[in-house]
């Protein structure tokens, strides 16, 4: 499938750090894993990013207690590829209530580690609830730990995503 993520595109500047969610076009394979995405950067240029062999996430069909380990790279534009290692477990099926409503969701717990060109190692621990009926995330809680060369600007240490509503 092809997804388009649309935001206002407005940047927020906090303590000298610019936060923005660019509008993205995302390609997803039949395991629900991203394969490519593109966005327009602040200079107006389109940046294409490619996962190899594919983005994070388990292969379908999914089952409770399923585990996986995935090594993948993400290359954006002309930048060097960044290697990632993800490990994950599907720990349960449970009822989740978010602003969009209540649904049965598969609960995925993952750890993703990568080191970028600046020498910053990021370890992201995530709990993701995916609606059994649609496969889409209804809630995701991420925490990020940084080591090695730390960013000189502010950086996210937690990111929480919730599904507000559907159309």
């Amino acid at each position, binding site marked *: 499938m092809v997804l388009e993520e649309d935001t206002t595109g407005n940047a927020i500047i906090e303590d000298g750090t610019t936060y923005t969610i660019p509008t993205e076009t995302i390609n997803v394979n039949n395991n629900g894993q991203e394969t490519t995405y593109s966005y327009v950067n602040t200079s107006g240029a389109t940046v294409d990013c490619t996962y190899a062999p594919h983005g994070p996430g388990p292969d379908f069909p999914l089952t409770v207690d399923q585990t996986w380990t995935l090594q993948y790279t993400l290359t954006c534009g002309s930048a060097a590829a960044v290697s990632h290692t993800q490990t994950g477990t599907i720990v349960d099926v449970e009822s989740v209530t978010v602003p969009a409503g209540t649904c049965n969701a598969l609960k995925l717990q993952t750890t993703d580690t990568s080191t970028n060109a600046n020498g910053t190692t990021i370890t992201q621990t995530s709990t993701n609830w995916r609606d059994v009926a649609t496969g889409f995330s209804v809630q995701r809680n991420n925490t990020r730990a940084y080591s090695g060369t730390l960013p000189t600007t502010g950086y*996210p240490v937690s990111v929480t995503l919730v599904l507000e509503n559907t159309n």
Partner: protein
Amino acid sequence: MILSRQLRRSSCVVRRGTHHEGNKYETLESRRCCSYDRTHHRLQRRQWQQLMPTNYDFVTPTANAQKNYQETIVDNLGNTIVETYSQTVTTVNSDGS
């Protein structure tokens, strides 16, 4: 198949009623049999669940389906940034992805 066979073996409950005729030994044996079957049945059911877990297949997305998310970011400086965005399925591939 194994689960079905266990259910049939529990029919010893019915046979106990037709054969006991005041014979305590027969009744006792039947109870043991039933108790054994129930325990065994519970074990089999657990094993069945372990061996045959529920599979959740990939769900073909619906074209034009739109989901609206709210994302809350907390950074290392203590700032909290709340952003919203929408996600729309613009194309469904021929393989259902």
